């Protein structure tokens, strides 16, 4: 590659904390990903993080959960620090005579563990994956739904201040288990948050995952998700239904890297709504490693004011991943002059017996529909609002859980501010 670039003071600072590995080498030669990084060209993280940020202090704000789930176990991270579950005694995790963490049996079949250390995610270091690898170095929080159990979990990530923090969460859903996992990003102030969720779905498991990020106009957020879906067993496939609702930040990136190891089904939907000068980047990279993987992806977005919406989707069908069935769609509305949408729906296919398709559209609200409604006496604001709700509704309708769907719809509607 080309010669190393001069690093910013913040990059120097970060490097001082990174062990001397390939990741450090990559950061040293290229800096943080930004405009010049192919996979980040529309989300200039480097540019957004020029100033040195100190590690965040203790979380001092109060936040009301944007979404609740009846009967769920609520787990909380405050400025990246996992909070011990209420009313459960920790047991030490001992390795070679040394305590390396604590474990909590929260409920029957639900185990949460905190480890003092993360890991060197060597396998994940490529250009553009630095943030995910950086987060993997952080102390690990592990959540396990044991085989055969059904659990609902709300994982709240609360952030404030103007420093920087991150987290490293590992979720496993055991064989035949069912999990509903809601992850929130509730950010006040202007921190830089680098989150990571690794999610493993074992054979025959089902997981409904919701990621909800409320608006945070001054914050910088990167949330990387690394997902692995096991192959089918006894004729039963793993099913993942993921839905992201993102309401923007100074810069926000929600990145999903998913691997279909074999026959499995995934929905990787997202809905974003942006106003003012907010930014949101929905990036997904779906790899079909084995045969018979199915992904159905619907992403929709609305950009108002001077906001910028980014969608990057990629399907990688590896050699031999026959009978892959993959659909990707991204549709965006631009509501004002000055708003922008950038999209890159990508296919990389090395197997011939596959059905892969993507569609991408961008445009304004349908003037004819608006005209029709106004003709019927609906005021323009209301008509626009109705059309926008209908536009987003197509994604929301795919959420099966009614209570969750209604809360998401309300958040989406409220995102109009």
């Amino acid at each position, binding site marked *: 590659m080309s010669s190393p670039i001069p690093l910013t003071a913040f990059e120097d600072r970060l490097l001082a904390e990174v062990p001397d590995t390939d990741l450090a080498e990559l950061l040293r030669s290229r800096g943080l990903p930004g405009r010049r990084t192919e996979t980040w060209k529309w989300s200039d993280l480097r540019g957004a993080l020029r100033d040195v940020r100190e590690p965040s202090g203790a979380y001092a704000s109060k936040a009301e959960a944007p979404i609740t789930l009846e009967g769920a176990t609520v787990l909380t991270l405050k400025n990246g620090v996992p909070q011990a579950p209420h009313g459960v005694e920790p047991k030490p995790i001992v390795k070679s005579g040394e305590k390396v963490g604590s474990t909590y049996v929260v409920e029957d079949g639900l185990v949460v563990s905190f480890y003092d250390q993360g890991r060197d995610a060597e396998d994940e270091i490529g250009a553009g994956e630095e943030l995910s690898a950086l987060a993997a170095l952080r102390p690990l929080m592990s959540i396990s739904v044991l085989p055969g159990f059904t659990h609902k979990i709300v994982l709240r990530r609360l952030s404030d201040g103007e420093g920087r923090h991150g987290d490293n969460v590992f979720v496993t859903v055991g064989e035949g288990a069912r999990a509903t996992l809601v992850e929130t990003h509730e950010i006040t102030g202007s921190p830089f948050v680098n989150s990571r969720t690794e999610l493993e779905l074992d054979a025959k498991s089902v997981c409904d995952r919701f990621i909800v990020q409320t608006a945070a106009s001054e914050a910088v957020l990167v949330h990387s998700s690394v997902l692995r879906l096991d192959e089918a067993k006894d004729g039963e496939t793993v099913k993942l239904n993921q839905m992201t609702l993102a309401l923007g930040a100074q810069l926000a990136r929600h990145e999903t890297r998913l691997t279909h190891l074999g026959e499995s089904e995934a929905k990787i939907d997202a809905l974003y709504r942006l106003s003012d000068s907010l930014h949101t980047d929905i990036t997904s990279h779906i790899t079909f490693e084995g045969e018979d993987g199915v992904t159905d992806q619907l992403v929709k977005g609305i950009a108002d004011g001077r906001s910028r919406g980014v969608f990057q989707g990629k399907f990688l069908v590896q050699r031999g991943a026959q009978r892959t069935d993959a659909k990707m769609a991204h549709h965006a509305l631009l509501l004002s002059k000055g708003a922008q949408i950038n999209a890159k729906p990508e296919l990389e296919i090395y197997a011939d017996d596959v059905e*892969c398709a993507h569609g991408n559209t961008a445009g304004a609200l349908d003037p004819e529909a608006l005209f029709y409604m106004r003709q019927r006496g609906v005021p323009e604001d209301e008509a626009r609002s109705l059309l926008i709700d209908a536009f987003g509704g197509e994604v929301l309708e795919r959420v099966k859980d009614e209570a969750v769907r209604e809360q998401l719809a309300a958040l989406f509607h409220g995102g109009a501010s």
Partner: protein
Amino acid sequence: MSQTTYKEGIDAKTVEQVEELGTYKHGFTTNIESVKAPKGLNEDTVRFISAKKEEPEWLLEWRLAAFERWKKMEEPTWANVSYPPIDYQDHYYYAEPKAGAKYESIDDVPEEILEDFKKLGIPLREAEVLLGVEGAGATPGDARTNQPKVAVDAVFDSVSVATTFKKELEKAGVIFMSISEAVREHPELVKKYLGSVVPVSDNFFATLNSAVFSDGTFVYVPKGVRCPMELSTYFRINEANTGQFERTLIVADEGAYVSYLEGCTAPMRDENQLHAAVVELVALDDAEIKYSTVQNWYPGDKDGKGGIYNFVTKRADCRGVRSKVSWTQVETGSAVTWKYPSCILRGDDSQGEFYSIAITNNHQQADTGTKMVHLGKNTRSRIISKGISAGKSDQTYRGLVSIHQKAEGARNFTQCDSLLIGSNCGAHTVPYVEDKSNTAILEHEATTSKLSEEQLFYAQSRGLDEEEAVALLVNGFCREVLQELPMEFAVEAQKLVQVSLEGSVG
């Protein structure tokens, strides 16, 4: 035997035919003496080329400036292609057939060259055209013959050897000549437009071309003139180790129309040959340019040895209001293709179109697509790309649709379909969409699939053999693009689709 694994339903005969593939029917070499520049590339090479072509000082300066820039540039690596590093000092940058380029009439053209043209068949159909030349000389507008009217400017290695139909074109006021001639005869036009669409420092390969371009075609269609015939240039790389760097410049003045056909072949050789062309199109108010390419350069043998590196920069500037440029390409050749014919839609209500069929087989690699840059109001663009991958080849559609803030009411439709034949090839789609206008409408769709076994079965049950059935289906798959080709090309392109896929099918 074959390492290739095919799906069920593909019989051993097909696999055998795959093995046999790599016979390239244009792989002959004509032995005519040629004058070459010394091997390698330095300032002297640039001066040599310029002197050889008796160029004016300004053009030499232009070339030298480009060469200075090029020395500081890095070869691009972002495309999804891989090839061993190119030693730019190991190429000849100029070769001309020694017989010279001063043919007054077709009779003066050496027999070998004529023979060569005869062997080519696609897309020139030289016999008819050359017959046509004689007829045209005597009775211009000889419309009653069945011969298609195509004016040909042939580029044989680096020098244009024959220009036909010149008189009739002159009558219409159309300038159609080699770019070297144009530099001498119409310096003001060349100076005005050369490099105005693809600037000297545009990209690594275009800059290299600017420094060492050998010859090419110049077309100027004056105001309000509808060019009376299809214009055609025939490119062919003959000399071993010769890079071919042609430069094409087409200007359609206000209200003018021209349709231009470009066909390319090259002889079979073991080593890779470099081809870095630049094509610039300028369409002024209400002008229309239709540019069609059938590219059938030598793709290398079945093991991926040899073949042309085709690194081409093609760009159109729709400068005028209501101007229109349409690119149509059938890409079946070259070992490596790196090519993105683009349109800058500057004029209000201007239109750009890109229709492409790309077929890769054996070890071919193609990274091709288009850029549609919408600057003017109510600009429209349409992209239809059909990619067919077979053998061990890899193919990428890479495209950009960019709508600037001032491009109110802009409209784009993009469709990219890929077809995979066999389990060892790859088909990729990398579209970039950038929309900064809230009144634009953009639509993009892409699919990747294989040939339908049901359709194949149906066609075979009607008596077609497997190969014919596949050709029929692939032609159906490409239909939307084939129908955009001028009549003269359409039939041959269909045949070419069939030939390119010979034996690779399933």
